């Protein structure tokens, strides 16, 4: 048995969040998500949390486990024998129990135009296959592994202090498309990346990369974006547009 403390928030019952403790049986393969499901099925059906794939690919089960952002399905009770406190992902508004409002995060993702942009006509598009060499793929592949779990936002104190900061995953996504040989949308993405809410708000704390369950290394992408942004500003300067 492990003592699992869960931060609860039931707005219709009380305005303030509170902590509830549960005793959960476990073996070597019991994940934190299993524990939450056990609590919901056996102890308290009112508990709310998100999950879907239970195999670290849908990105919906993010929680703070003893203060560190984790995917519930990718961490195990056996590693928390001293006790476990589960809280909703940090830096986002909490709607209920472990459920956060991901709106700010999703808006930032959307803002960077995370899709292939090119000037080809529809006819050309359907006629070309857009082949890529392994070298061209290698340039952005790591950054394309993001599962939009939002853990990096909960790890980022800059996002915690300023929710307008585009944040690790969104900037990584912009960088991923900017590096894609099939894409021509860099000019359309740079103006946003050149603002104070872009990569320049990052101070390379680097914790986002530590917590990323997909080894995307968002901190690297954000700081590579600073280099791109600086280059872009220089080019604009020489073109007389600044």
């Amino acid at each position, binding site marked *: 048995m492990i003592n699992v403390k869960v931060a609860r*928030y039931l*707005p219709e019952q009380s305005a*303030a*969040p509170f902590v509830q403790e549960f005793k959960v049986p476990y073996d070597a393969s019991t994940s934190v998500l299993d524990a939450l499901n056990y609590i919901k099925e056996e102890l308290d059906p009112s508990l709310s949390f998100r999950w879907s794939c239970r195999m670290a690919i849908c990105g919906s089960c993010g929680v703070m486990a003893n*203060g*560190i952002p984790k995917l519930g399905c990718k961490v195990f009770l056996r590693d928390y024998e001293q006790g476990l406190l589960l809280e909703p992902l*940090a*830096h*986002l*508004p*909490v*709607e209920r129990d472990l459920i956060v*409002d991901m709106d700010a995060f999703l808006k930032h993702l959307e803002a960077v135009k995370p899709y292939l942009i090119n000037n080809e006509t529809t006819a050309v598009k359907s006629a070309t296959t857009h082949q890529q*060499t*392994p*070298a061209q793929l*290698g*340039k952005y592949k790591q950054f394309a592994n993001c599962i939009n779990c939002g853990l990096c936002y909960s790890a980022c*104190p800059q996002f*915690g*202090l300023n929710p307008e900061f585009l944040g690790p995953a969104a900037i990584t996504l912009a960088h991923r498309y900017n590096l894609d040989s099939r894409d021509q949308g860099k000019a359309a993405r740079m103006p946003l990346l050149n603002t104070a809410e872009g990569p320049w708000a990052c*101070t*390379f*704390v*680097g*914790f986002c990369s*530590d917590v990323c369950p997909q080894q995307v*290394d968002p*901190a*690297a992408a954000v*700081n*590579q974006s*600073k*280099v791109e942004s600086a280059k872009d500003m220089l080019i604009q300067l020489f073109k007389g547009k600044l």
Partner: protein
Amino acid sequence: MSYKPVLTRTWWLKHRAFKAYMLREATVLPLLFFLLTLCCGIYALWQGPSQWQAWQITMKHPAVLAINSLALVASLYHAWTFFQLFPRVMPIRLGSKTLPAQVLIAGQWAGLVAVFVLFTWLFRGSL
């Protein structure tokens, strides 16, 4: 109906990674002191020989020496963290391969040693 906990001033005390980050950023403090003494030195040089000698004596004061030694250690620590981050910010790609980070890190340390050797050689007589 939602609530949002606000980040307290002590957010950085909550995790080892944040403390390491703050330590890295704090290395600028002893460095500021060193730069200040350096500026004073240039000013003293401009003021004349007696001021210059007074500055040299001040620089030998144990407290000044201690803070400046701290600045040296802090700068080396900062360099250590910086050298590790550099290959992630400016990865060097050769074809479809990325140059291993260790090579870039070793290269930067080699650069640092080269600068150190050069300056020791330049100032060999005056130390």
